[in-house]
């Protein structure tokens, strides 16, 4: 093995500390990581896709129930959360920019802000869920919904909790990832040559935001125009 290692080391230039042994260059490592994250996001699209399919089917079958059930959601809280997430996407992009330009303190600042927005989202979501529990809108034996559309409305709320719950789970995971990235930034692991972890975490964070951008109108704004008019 020592021969092999010697041969491996013999071809010259000093490696960047972040470079893993099985890659030839840092560039190759960066490209692999980015491609990997994009592929992962494709799998995520299909993961959520199954629920979007169910949503579409039942919305076409039960438009009235969809409209009634959607009106039970708190559009103000949902709207605020949308704004919070869009803001967090901006701060995340700024954090990536900070890492790219080698500004350690700025990177850390933007990351903290992103995490604060993320946490705000989750707290608001908690209040929304609490409201649903109080109103017996959680599917299952305790579910209650007035009128003849109780059945399809229960399907609506099943999808609501599955979709937003899955999204919130992704937010929690994202929060964990950003904590690690923050710690790495604190330890000064990033430089203009190597900021791939920040970049791909950013990709993930933006993806989770985009999912919400679809969830918000689909769940909250089904038939609002009629009811505001």
């Amino acid at each position, binding site marked *: *093995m020592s*021969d*092999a290692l010697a*041969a*491996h080391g013999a071809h010259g230039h000093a490696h960047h500390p972040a470079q*893993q*042994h*099985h890659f*030839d260059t840092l560039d*190759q490592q960066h*490209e*692999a990581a980015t*491609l*990997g994250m994009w*592929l*992962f996001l*494709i*799998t*995520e*699209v*299909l*993961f*959520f*896709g*199954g*629920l979007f*399919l*169910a949503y579409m*089917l*039942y919305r076409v*079958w*039960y438009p009235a129930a969809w409209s009634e059930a959607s009106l039970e959601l708190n559009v103000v809280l949902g709207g605020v959360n949308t704004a919070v997430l869009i803001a967090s996407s901006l701060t995340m992009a700024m954090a990536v920019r900070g890492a790219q330009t080698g500004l350690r303190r700025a990177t850390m600042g933007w990351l903290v802000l992103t995490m604060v927005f993320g946490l705000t989202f989750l707290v608001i979501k908690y209040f929304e869920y609490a409201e649903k529990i109080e109103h017996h809108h959680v*599917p*299952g*034996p305790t579910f209650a919904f007035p009128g003849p559309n109780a*059945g*399809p409305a*229960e*399907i609506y709320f*099943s*999808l609501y*909790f*599955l979709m937003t719950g899955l999204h919130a789970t992704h937010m929690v995971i994202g929060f964990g990832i950003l904590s690690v990235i923050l710690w790495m930034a604190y330890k000064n692991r990033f430089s203009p040559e190597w900021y791939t972890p920040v970049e791909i975490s950013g990709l993930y964070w933006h993806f989770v935001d985009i999912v919400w951008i679809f969830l918000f109108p689909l769940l909250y704004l089904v038939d609002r125009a009629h009811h505001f008019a």
Partner: protein
Amino acid sequence: MDTTVTAPRVTYLNHEHTLASWLLTKDHKRIGILYMIVVTFAFFLGGIFASLIRLELTTPAGDLLSADTYNKMFTMHGVAMVFFVLIPAVPAILGNFVLPLMLGAKDVAFPKLNLISWYLFTIGFLFTVYALVAGGVDTGWTFYTPYSSRASNTNVMATGLGVFITGFSSILTGLNFMVTIHRMRAPGLTWFRLPLFVWAVYSTALVMILGTPVIAITVLALAIERFLHFGIFDAALGGDPVLFQHMFWFYSHPAVYIMILPPMGAISEVIAAFSRKSIFGYAFVAFSSLAIAIFGFLVWAHHMFVSGISVYSALVFSFLTYAVAIPSAVKTFNWAATMYRGAIWLKAPMIWAIGFLGLFLVGGLTGLFTAALGVDVHLHDTYFVVAHFHYIMVGGAIMGYFAGLHFWWPKITGRMYSDIWAKVAAIIVFTGFNLTFGPQFIVGYLGMPRRYYAYPEEFQVLNVLSSAGASILGLGYTLIAIYLVASLFKGERVGANPWHATGLEWTTQSPPLPHNFEKQPVVTEDAYEYTKREIKVV
């Protein structure tokens, strides 16, 4: 081969010895072997269930097992074999081992992720084993609602969770392989110089990435429906149980291609190597893999011709099913044509590959019956379908796995097994297989539904034949285990390239170095240049 080969001094097997060095390894070769251990165990388990099923079915009355136990047996047989044998066998075992070697890479793109994938796979498997020990599950491996969500009182949750977790192993493996193929190829190894096994693994990775998340969310939705009484598939609320079938088959049909594409790739390698020729129609074989992977996503509803889909959708899905049959036919013809004017060295891997051709041919051709709408109405959910998919999955995928395993075994272990016993095993398995599943085509057309624990007496003769075949099949598989294990201790040591094959994996020592190659290989020619005799490594 006459000269005694001395064992290489340092190999991936002997450079570290502790248990931790295996359980925490990031070496794709060791991870391949870790997969082999779990998969072999699952295969053994699934085989026991199969034996009990066949034993029960030797008599028309239900007398050996109780009906509930029988239902659990075929469910656990399906779950173990599909999710823990067929899907990982070739990609996760052979793919992990040879893919980076074929590419001239030191490892896959994400070695840590690769190890995590194995842990997810194993944890998923343990959940499933737990489900078994805690009383089993009886929904059929298809988990159809509302039976699975409302009626069954068995361990659907634990099994579903097992499948869900294993799904992530599959997703991450597919992702890892795809990035590896894109970014880790040796200098000079262009796309059209890649061995066809790599094309097959690439196509498989595509299916794993696009298909598996859908089964994950479907099983999750099912679990939540069962556990928290959500109602996405609940007819009582106005939900649609058939939606579950659509979502299930959107993955599970392409999953058939996860099972069969990599063995097809292994077959391309074996046939080229033992015909001493470049593969006939390289580009057609390569693109047929991709075509199968892509068309494979458009045919899921052919599992549902009698499940209340409209006649027009049935028409479309039947047509697309015929479209996906063509690339498989093209592959088969190209393999046959590769042998034309070759110098065919009939060693064990080639015998396994020829066995694959025979069984895959039957499996593929009987697919024409089940794709034919007018006939499928009669055949659907009968033993004809059972026979058809076993010809593809066992006759095709498992024969292909063994062809590949026999081909790369000397590379993996550095030792050669008994050629004659390997050929005997191939013939026993081939014979036993045909005797097991051949009669099922007939009993299926006669109308015997699948998943029947007791059946009318007129079906008995064919069922007894089938069970007899199964015991021969079991004997064949046991024989493989015996001579392969024996080869580990007594097998003749082999050099870098015992088959005189092309491909970068044969240019490094057997077993390979921990980091695969002494020097970065550089590729200057196409795959399978046997007429030039040796692949140049600068």
